[in-house]
C-alpha cells in the first residue's frame, strides 16, 4: 500500500504539486491523466524517490520512505519503473540488460539470473531477440525489454511514465498488451498515459491531475464518461477530439494529414478508413474550400470519434461568403469526396462572427471495426 500525506513538490518557488493526498491499495491499477505540466510524472517519480518531496510524507507498505536516513535503495528494489524513453543500457544485450540488475543488486547467482531473464523475456515475447542490442530493435520491443528488466527485480509495484508516448502508433498496442498481462499477475501499477481506451481497459481507478493536485478521481467510467468537474470535462472532451485550425494559405497540409491519421489510428479506424479520411480532407479542404477563401482563410476542423455509434465525424467550419461545396467548379474533387465519405451535410451559419459555412462529414468504419475486434479476440 502506498500513502501520500500532504505531499508538496516545488522547484525554487514554483509549485509542481501542492498538498497531494492519495492512497493506493495493493493490486490497484491506476491511470493518471491530465494536461501537460500538471505534475503527473513528478507524482509517480515521488513514489520511488527519484524526486524528493519538499514537504509531506510518503509511506510504502507502512514504512516512511521520506524519513531522513532511510535507505531509498531498499524501497526502489520493490518498485519497478518503466520510462517513456525506455532507458535500456545501450552497451548490453537485452538478455544482459535483464540479468545485470539481478547480479549487481540482488546478488543472484549467474545461473539463476540467466534462467530468470530467459523466462522474463519470454513473458514479453522477446526470447528470440535476447542477444540483440537495444539499437537493433524497434521502439515497441525496447519498451517490452524495459518492462522485463523492471520485472527482473520482482517488484510488487510498477510505475509507468508515459510508456507509449515515444512509440509509433503501430507499436502502441504491443506494449499495452504486455502491461495488461501484468495486471493478471496482481502487480500494483500506476500508469501515466494519454491512451484513453487503454486506461479504460486496464485500470480500476483513474486520477485526473490538474491545479497541482489530484483534481478528480474515480473509476474509468466515472472519469471518462461522466466527469463531474469542469476542467475534467473539458480535458476528456479534448482527449476525444482532434481540432485543427487553419489561418494561412501556405499551411502544413502534410502535418495535418499526419495528425488526422494518428487520431484515426488511435481510435482503431481501419487502414482503408484512414485513407478515405485523408482523401476527404485533401479534396474538400485543399481542393475546394481553400481555393475559395482568398488570402485570409479561417478553417476550423474537428474530428470526433464516437464509441457508441463507432462512427467518425469530421466537422469543417470556414469563413467567406456562403458557399456549398456541392456548387464548386471542381467537380472531380467533389466526386472523390462523395465516394470517400458515408455522409455529407452542408449548412449555413448565421450567428457566428467568423464562420459562415459548415460541412459535416461522416465516416462509418463499423464493418471493418467488427472484423478488427474479432481478430483481436482470437
Amino acid at each position, binding site marked *: 500500500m502506498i500513502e501520500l500525506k500532504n505531499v508538496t513538490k516545488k522547484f525554487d518557488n514554483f509549485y509542481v504539486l501542492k498538498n497531494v493526498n492519495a492512497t493506493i491499495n495493493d493490486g490497484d491499477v491506476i491511470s493518471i491523466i491530465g494536461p501537460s505540466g500538471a505534475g503527473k510524472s513528478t507524482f509517480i517519480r515521488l513514489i*520511488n524517490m*527519484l524526486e524528493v518531496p519538499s514537504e509531506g510524507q510518503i509511506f510504502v507498505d507502512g514504512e516512511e520512505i521520506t524519513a531522513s536516513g532511510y535507505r531509498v*535503495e*531498499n524501497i*526502489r*528494489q520493490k*518498485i*519497478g*519503473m518503466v*520510462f517513456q*524513453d*525506455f*532507458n*535500456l*543500457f*545501450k*552497451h*548490453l544485450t537485452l*538478455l*544482459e540488460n535483464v*540479468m*545485470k*540488475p539481478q*547480479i*549487481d*543488486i540482488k546478488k543472484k547467482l*549467474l*545461473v539463476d*539470473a*540467466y*534462467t530468470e531473464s*530467459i523466462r522474463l523475456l519470454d513473458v514479453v515475447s522477446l*526470447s528470440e531477440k*535476447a*542477444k540483440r542490442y537495444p539499437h537493433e530493435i524497434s521502439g515497441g520491443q525496447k519498451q517490452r525489454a*524495459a518492462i522485463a*528488466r*523492471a520485472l527482473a*527485480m520482482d517488484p510488487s509495484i510498477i510505475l509507468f511514465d508515459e510508456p507509449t508516448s515515444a512509440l509509433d502508433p503501430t507499436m502502441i498496442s504491443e506494449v499495452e498488451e504486455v502491461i495488461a498481462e501484468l495486471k493478471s499477475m496482481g502487480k500494483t501499477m500506476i500508469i501515466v498515459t494519454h491512451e484513453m481506451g487503454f486506461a479504460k481497459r486496464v485500470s480500476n481507478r483513474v486520477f485526473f491531475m490538474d491545479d497541482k493536485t489530484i483534481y478528480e478521481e474515480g473509476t474509468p467510467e466515472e472519469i471518462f464518461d461522466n466527469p463531474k468537474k469542469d476542467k475534467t470535462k473539458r480535458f476528456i472532451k479534448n482527449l476525444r477530439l482532434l481540432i485543427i485550425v487553419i489561418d494561412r494559405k501556405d499551411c502544413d497540409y502534410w502535418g495535418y494529414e499526419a495528425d488526422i491519421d494518428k487520431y484515426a489510428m488511435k481510435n482503431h479506424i481501419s487502414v482503408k478508413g484512414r485513407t478515405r479520411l485523408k482523401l476527404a480532407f485533401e479534396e474538400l479542404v485543399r481542393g475546394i474550400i481553400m481555393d475559395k477563401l482568398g488570402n485570409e482563410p479561417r478553417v476550423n476542423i474537428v474530428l470526433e470519434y464516437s464509441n457508441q455509434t463507432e462512427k467518425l465525424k469530421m466537422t469543417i467550419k470556414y469563413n467567406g461568403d456562403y458557399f456549398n461545396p456541392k456548387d464548386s467548379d471542381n467537380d472531380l474533387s467533389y466526386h472523390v469526396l462523395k465516394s470517400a465519405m458515408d455522409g455529407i451535410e452542408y449548412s449555413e451559419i448565421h450567428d457566428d462572427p467568423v464562420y459562415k459555412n459548415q460541412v459535416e462529414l461522416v465516416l462509418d468504419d463499423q464493418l471493418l471495426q467488427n472484423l478488427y475486434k474479432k481478430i483481436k479476440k482470437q
Partner: protein
Amino acid sequence: MIVLALMSVLFSCRKRGIDVTKFKSVEEFNNEKLKIGVVIGTSISVEIEKVLDKAKIEYFRTGPDLMSALKLSKVDAVVFEEYNLTYLANFKNLNILHDLVVGQTSFALGFPKTEKGKALRDDFNLFLNRIKENGRLQEIVDYWIRIDLPGDASIDYSELKNVNGELTMYTQGFERPFSFVFYNDIVGIDLELARDYCKEKGYKLNIVKTSSVLPAIKSGKCDFAGSGIEITEERKDVIYFSDPVYVANDVIVINDTSAFEGYTFIDAIRDGFHETLIEEDRYILFLKGMIVTIAITVLSLVLGTAVGFVLYVIYYGGCKVIAKVFDSLDWLFKRLPMVVFLMLLLYVIFARVDINGAVVAIIGFTITFATSVFSMINAEIKSIDKGQVEAATALGYTKIQTFYDLLLPQAFNKLLPVYQGAILQLITSTSIVGYVMVSDLTKAGDLVRSRTFGEFFPLLLVAIIYIILAKILTIIISQMSKILLTKFLVNYKSLKGKTIND
C-alpha cells in the same frame, strides 16, 4: 624514411646563385644578395651586423644547426669561431677561410648576479690570473682544444674534498672544447678549470647537465656555470662573468662542393652509422636516453591515469570543485606550451627547492596527463544519456554502483582510442625534457649531433626509436584493456550447456 633520405640528398646538391668560393676579403661578403648564418645570442651575432651590414643575416640556435644550414646551402656562408671549426674535419664540404676574421669571441664562466655570486667570481678571477701567469691555463686549453684527444681523456674528481662545502656547476655538454661529451662523460676546459679551482679551495663539485644554462644561472639554482659561455653586453646585465678563459677568432666558412666528388651515398651512410653509434661508444648515450624517456613516459602515464581517475570518482561522488580545477588546467594546457610549463615548474615554482629535473618532468607530465584523463572520462560519461542513470537509480543502484557497473563499462570502449592517442602525445611531448636538465632520447640525439655535426643519422635513429616505443606502448595498453573489458561483461557464456544457442 626513404623519402627523407632522398630529400636530404637532393637538397644537399642544391646550389645558390652567387659563387663565393673566389672571394678574398671580408668586404666582398658584404653583399645584399648573400645570406650569412650565425648562432643567435653570440657575440658574433652582434658584431656581424656592424661588419656585414648589407648582407642578409640568418640566425640559428646552435652550432650544429648552423653547419647543417650551410651544408644544405640554405646560407651562402657562416661566421663561426675558428677553434671550433677544427672539430668539423669530418665535414667534407667545408672551406674555412682562416684569413677572413670578422671579429673575436671571448669565453668565460658565469656566476649568478648575487652577493654570493660576485664573491665567488672575484675569488675565481684571482685564481684564473694566477694560472694564466704560471702557464697552467694555457696547458689546459692546449690539451682540450686538440682534435685527436686520447681515448682515455677524462677529468678526475676523486681528490675533491668537502672541506668548505659543495659547489653546483651547470653545464650544457654541447660546447667543445669547453664542455662536451667524450666517451659518455662530460669533459672540457671549463670542467677542468672548475675541478682545479675546487681542489685548491676545498670544495666538492656537483655537475648538472642542462640545455638551458643561462636561465639556470639567473634563477640562482647553481653556484656557477661553465659551458663555453660567450661574453656579451646583454648577458653582462643579468649574470657576472669571470675574466676570459679563452679568446677566439671568428672566421668565415663557405661550402666547398668539390670535396663531394667520389663520395657516394653508401659512403655517407657507412660514415654516418659509424660516427653516430660506434665512435666513442655513443650507442650508450642513446640507450641511456631511451631508458630515461621510457621511465618518464611510463611513470607519468601510470601516475597521471591513477590521479585523473581517482579524482574523477571523487568528483562524480559530489565534489564539484575538482571539475573546476581541471577545467582551468585544461584551459591552461591548451594555451601554454609544455616546455614553458616545465620550465616554470623548475625555475619558478621549485626554484628554491633542490629537485631533480627528471622529478620535475614526471610531476609536470603527471599533471597534464591527469588533466587529459579526467576530461576524457568526464566527456564520455557526460555523453551517456541521463535516462540510463535514472533507470539504474530506479532499479536500486547507488550512485557509485551506477558509475562502476554501468557508466564506466559503457564509456570504456569509446575511451580506449582517445586514451591511446593521449599516450602517443605523451611519448612525443617528453622530447622537451632536455630543457629541464634531463638527458632523454632527444637530448642524446642532440649531444651526438653536436659532436658529429651530422643531423641525418642521429635524427633518423631517434625518430625510429620513438616510433617503436609508441608501438610497444599501444600494444601493451590494448592487451591490458582486453583483460579489463572481460571484467565488465555479464559473462553468462560460461554457463555451458545451459545457454540458448547464438
